C-alpha cells in the first residue's frame, strides 16, 4: 500500500513531463485463456505486477490489454508474471 503513493507520484511526474516515457498500452496474446475463469486469473496475475495500471483480459479474443508504466515495469516482466500463473503471453501489438 505504501509503495503506491510514490508510484502514483512518479506517474504524476511522468505525465507532467512528456519528455519521459510513461504510460504504455500493450496487447498480449494469451492463447491458453480459453475458459470462463482464465481471464480473471490473467487479470489478477498481470495486475499484481508493480507498475501495471490496468488489465483487461478477453477470453473470446484471447487477448489482454495492459496499461503500464514502462519506467517501473517491462513488457517481459508482465509476460513472465502471466506465464508463471500458467498462461503464456506474447506481445501482439504495441501502442493501440
Amino acid at each position, binding site marked *: 500500500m505504501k509503495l503506491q503513493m510514490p508510484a502514483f507520484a512518479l506517474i504524476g511526474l511522468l505525465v507532467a513531463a512528456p519528455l519521459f516515457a510513461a504510460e504504455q498500452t500493450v496487447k498480449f496474446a494469451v492463447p491458453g485463456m480459453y475458459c470462463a475463469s482464465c481471464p480473471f486469473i490473467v487479470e489478477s*496475475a498481470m495486475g499484481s505486477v508493480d507498475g501495471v495500471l490496468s488489465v483487461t483480459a478477453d477470453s473470446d479474443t484471447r487477448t489482454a490489454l495492459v496499461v503500464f508504466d514502462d519506467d517501473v515495469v517491462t513488457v517481459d516482466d508482465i509476460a513472465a508474471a502471466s506465464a508463471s500463473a500458467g*498462461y503464456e503471453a506474447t506481445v501482439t501489438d504495441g501502442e493501440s
Partner: protein
Amino acid sequence: MTETTKLQGQQSTSQSRKNRMIAAGGILGAIAASSCCIIPLILFSLGVSGAWVGNLTALAPYKPFFIVITLGFLGYGYWLVYRKPQDCCDGEACARPLPNRLVKGALFGSTLLIILAIFWNWIAPIIAPVMLGL
C-alpha cells in the same frame, strides 16, 4: 442355509463395491470436468500457481466429454442406490440394504461439482472477481 447367507453376503459386498466404483467414477469424472476451469481458479486464489496450471487449462476441449461420462456414472449411481429393485429371497427380510453413506456423499458431491462445471461459464464472472478480489 449357511450356503445361501454366504452367497447373499458375497452378493451384497460385490454390490456395495460396485456402488463405490460407480461413485468413485463419478467423482473422478466431475474433477476431470472441473479441472480445466474451476480448479485453476481455486488454486490461484489460494496462492498456488505455476506454469503447470496451463496443462489443466489445456483440458478444456475435453470438458464436454468428461461431463457426459460423469453424468453417465451419476445416473447409473443414483439408479443403483435409489431405484434398483432388490432381489428378495424366500424367508429373508426383504429390506433394501441401506446404501453406504460414503457412496451417497460421493454422489451428491460429484453432482454438485458437475453442475458447477456445466454452468461455470455463467457462474465464473460472478464468483471469480470475488475470489480474486478484483
